[in-house]
């Protein structure tokens, strides 16, 4: 067939268009029929492909590789936090501690259990901050510590993401209790904010020292339970109203505000210690 003689040869422009995939179907079909018969045009096709085709092929490969190698689209902040199951698991544990355990106690122990739930809620952000300091929660582990992004920015971003997930969950549990179980004083939801902030920012500030934030978080949690326990027992009443009275008390709120301001200020002043320090 290739020996078949023909007077007509395909134009270079047609062959180039065919190679680039731009030839209209009719032209492409007739060109293919002709190429089968014409050795001259076949070798011309090979020449043109070798000359112009590589750039085109490279571009196509680059596009393909770009598509295949595309990392997941989630923003890097989320990838550095929620995308890490270690952290997500820990956040779920925190939510469970804050919500489920006292909820179960409430189911079995009535109002006392409800008080336990109310006591535990402000500890959610504490857990969040303590977790944020742990190097294990970073997908790249220790590698991240030597990067320009390491430091308070990364830590507080993580803390915010976990607290942002844990707090609404805690409030949902509370709303559920209020709806199906027992009345929860509404004032409490607001009264929580300052103590929660104070406890969490204390842990954040502790992260700028040599203390292990995890131990500080535990101490802060125990301290909070002692304060509340003492306050409630001094009132000789263990019910949600007594607890709400205690937490919403101006003295406690003022102290919480002062602690929060002092802790945040300490953290900002000593922020460099987070970026250039590791206890272990």
């Amino acid at each position, binding site marked *: 067939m290739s020996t078949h003689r023909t007077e007509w040869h395909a134009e270079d422009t047609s062959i180039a268009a065919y190679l680039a995939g731009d030839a209209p179907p009719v032209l492409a079909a007739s060109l293919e029929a002709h190429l089968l018969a014409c050795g001259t045009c076949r070798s011309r096709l090979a020449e043109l492909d070798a000359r112009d085709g590589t750039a085109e092929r490279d571009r196509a490969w680059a596009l393909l590789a770009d598509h295949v*190698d595309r990392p997941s689209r989630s923003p890097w902040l989320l990838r550095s936090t929620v995308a890490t199951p270690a952290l997500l698991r820990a956040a779920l544990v925190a939510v469970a501690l804050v919500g489920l355990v006292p909820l179960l106690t409430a189911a079995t122990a009535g109002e006392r259990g409800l008080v336990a739930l109310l006591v535990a809620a402000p500890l959610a952000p504490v857990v969040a901050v303590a977790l944020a300091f742990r190097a294990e929660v970073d997908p*790249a582990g220790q590698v991240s510590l*030597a990067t320009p992004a390491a430091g308070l920015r990364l830590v507080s971003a993580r803390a915010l993401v976990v607290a942002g997930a844990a707090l609404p969950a805690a409030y949902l549990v509370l709303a559920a209790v209020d709806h199906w179980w027992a009345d929860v004083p509404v004032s409490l939801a607001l009264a929580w904010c300052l103590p929660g902030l104070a406890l969490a920012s204390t842990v954040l500030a502790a992260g700028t020292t040599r203390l292990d934030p995890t131990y500080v978080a535990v101490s802060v949690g125990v301290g909070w339970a002692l304060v509340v326990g003492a306050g409630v027992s001094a009132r000789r009443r263990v019910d949600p109203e007594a607890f709400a009275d205690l937490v919403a008390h101006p003295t406690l709120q003022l102290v919480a505000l002062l602690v929060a301001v002092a802790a945040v200020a300490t953290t900002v002043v000593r922020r460099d210690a987070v970026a250039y320090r590791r206890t272990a």
Partner: protein
Amino acid sequence: MTSRPVTGPTVPGVVTAAPPLSFAGVTRSFGRSRAVDAVSLTAGPGVVGLLGPNGAGKSTLLRIAATVLAPDRGEVRLLGLDPSRPDERLEVRRRLGYLPQAPGLYPGFTPFDLVDYVAVLKEHTHAARRREEVRRVLVSVGLEDDMHRKIRRLSGGTRQRVALAAALLGDPDLLVLDEPATGLDPEQRLRLRSLLSQARTVVMATHHIAEVSSVCHEVHVVLGGRVHFSGPPAGLAALAAGRVWEDDRPDPRAVHSWLTPAGTHRHVGEPPAGAALVAPTLDDGYLLLTAEARR
């Protein structure tokens, strides 16, 4: 291997560049134990080996060199910059690659996603260029076929190469590598050597003497938190000059002695009169140094 000057080239009238790494009286304790004890050394450019037994303080020195850990006392200069100053530390971190001893990579990521994440932390903000760079480093450590598999499905040596790829991002001026050859097979070790020889300054911890003799321009022997030797590898071998001999029988007076494959007993220590002295190797120098440090 021939040694090359420890400091940069000295040209009259030209300010000599600061050594890539310099420690002066650097001390770091953990609780009561002093991991690094008043270490002063300058290192680089080229491949610098920190040689020493486990627990000698190599990793602590490297973590200080990687700006991950601040020293309790002492002056640190990395690439001529002071990491205790926030702005200079940021600059160092932009030009630094770090491979920790236990990287702790999250196993649910693929190597590509993981190195891409590190690239984000390293301020590679342009998405297309970042992807290209991530591909480049992964290919350079030989992970072209594994870059889209989950890390948990990869072997230990392959994971090590993922962390190495992350350290190579952005072609850093200073590479700090803690036991980079861990888990690598002989072929991968060879590849690592050629990677290291292309880097500007590499500071690496190792307890393999063979690694030091094959890639390092200079070596620092770390024992008990202190530096006991600094110099070219040949200098470490030269420490044992005239103190290595071979005999048919074991010699109880030797500091160390062992049976060689040739069937003779090789001894390191103070040779008896008339002993058949042999040329020392790096191992001999290192063994003598550790034995003397212990005394």
